[in-house]
């Protein structure tokens, strides 16, 4: 029982970070209609900024965290401006290939600067353990949960209740009509990228605080799983990204601990098996909207 609850907690931790990253995928896809495959690598960059700011430069932790989020947001802005914006009217396939290119570019830059070795991160968020129903839960887990829930609710209200959020929704539905109502579509898309990348920055802080290491490929597998989470929950849907993230995290943790024989080594793959089954049964994902075209 004890072990089962520990596994669940692990799964929720992992799932919360997936959810944050999936939020970025889903937002950018929903509004700009593109898959930003470089999104996962922003987490890797964020984790390296933590390495530089905290381990190497010994900047104070809160300041380092703010700088990390700011750096990720800036990176998102620059990538969008240089790589995606010129392709606004290109086919989705060209944009997708460009995104994969950006992803490899970021990985190789990290290789060039930091080398192939895994970098270790000092424990920079150190809080005591909590006692939850007789199970001791690490403080960092609680911080991860609370942060994820706050961000999720904040983002949801931002999109539903502010004029920028409404502009985003309008652009996501009909770019042309939005433009004719005076909405600056390019600017709205850039802002979406900045917000998505800032979320990836927050995810990178939580990731580094929990797992305490990073290598140039950290973002790649993590990003793909978060993308799977976004698709699982129904891409374009914010609550979907949250649920998808948690489910993928839980499936991964549970299969890693409970699969018989040596199958647990394949826990990464198992999450994708569930994704495939899910998509066969419900192609739009859990909460995805079905677009019925009127004939």
């Amino acid at each position, binding site marked *: 029982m004890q072990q089962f609850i520990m596994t669940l907690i692990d799964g929720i931790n992992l799932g919360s970070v997936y959810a944050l990253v999936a939020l970025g995928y889903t937002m950018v896809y929903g509004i700009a209609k593109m898959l930003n495959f470089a999104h996962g690598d922003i987490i890797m960059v964020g984790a390296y900024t933590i390495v530089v700011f905290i381990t190497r430069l010994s900047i104070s932790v809160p300041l380092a965290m703010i700088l990390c989020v700011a750096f990720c947001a800036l990176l998102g802005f620059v990538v969008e401006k240089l790589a995606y914006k010129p392709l606004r009217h290109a086919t989705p396939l060209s944009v997708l290939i460009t995104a994969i290119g950006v992803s490899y570019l970021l990985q190789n830059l990290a290789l060039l600067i930091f080398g192939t070795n895994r970098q270790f991160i000092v424990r920079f968020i150190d809080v005591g353990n909590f006692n939850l129903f007789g199970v001791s839960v690490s403080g960092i887990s609680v911080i991860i949960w609370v942060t994820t829930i706050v961000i999720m609710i*904040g983002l949801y209200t*931002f999109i539903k*209740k*502010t*004029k*920028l959020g*409404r*502009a985003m*929704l*309008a652009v996501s*539905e*009909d770019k*042309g*009509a*939005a*433009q*004719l*109502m*005076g*909405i*600056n*579509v390019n600017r709205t898309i850039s*802002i979406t990228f900045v917000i998505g990348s800032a979320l990836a920055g927050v995810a990178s802080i939580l990731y580094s605080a929990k797992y305490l290491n990073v290598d140039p490929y950290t973002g790649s597998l993590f990003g793909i799983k978060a993308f799977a989470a976004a698709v699982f929950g129904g891409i374009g849907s914010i609550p979907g990204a949250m649920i998808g993230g948690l489910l993928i995290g839980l499936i991964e943790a549970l299969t890693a601990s409970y699969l018989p024989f040596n199958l647990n080594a394949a826990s990464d793959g198992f999450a994708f098996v569930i994704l495939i089954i899910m998509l066969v049964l419900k192609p739009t994902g859990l909460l995805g*909207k079905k677009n019925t075209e009127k004939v």
Partner: protein
Amino acid sequence: MTQVELLEVNNIGISFGGLRAVDNVSLTIKNGQLYGLIGPNGSGKTTLFNMITGVYKPTSGTFYFNGENLTGKSPVEINKKGIARTFQNIRLFKNMSVIDNVKVGLHNKHKYTMFESILRLPRFFHEEQKMEEEALELLGVFDLDKEKDSLACNLPYGKQRKLEIARALATGPKLLLLDEPAAGMNPNETEELMETIRFIRDNFNMTILLIEHDMKLVSGICEEISVLNFGTLLASGKTSEVLNNPEVIAAYLGE
């Protein structure tokens, strides 16, 4: 005051590849006028709308709005200068609520920064409150205030057309372009629409340019009209005179 020229289109034209969709069209619309644009299908009416709203860049000619040359400007700039439109095939933000559709139209009128909204500063609440009030007022004019929270796609057809007009008005235009506002309406709805259009002109001090096939509507409310045929101007002038022009009758009915 009513005789001031608001929109002046000079010899405007556009080609798509080898196809000359609109050629050498000129027209002048005065402040406060209700102006009709008619012509057979494919004669270039919507293309002309698309040029005036910045969707297409004209390949020849110019247009002046309020004395300012807006030829080739972007849709956003043109909208900010005061030209708003509706669409032939309704293009509402279907999955947004009725009131949010209008609020998108109010986007540029109310300013607050992203920071103010994230930090929930007083100006954010103040501006959002004003937006809510203005949106409700506009919806009230079109009798849509009771449906403010339903999704735009769930409105009946006639109300969707009205909401599109409300959304366009929310952007604060001086010139409103209506692309076939009566399409798909029954005679009663069309009758009501004519009242609404007159009401908008009188109460919002609006100048209105509309494309329409329903001759009853055109002859009922338009003071002047222009007729397009194969992308060129066939006739323009007082509605009754133009509609009795033998050339116009020929273009519509065939010789």
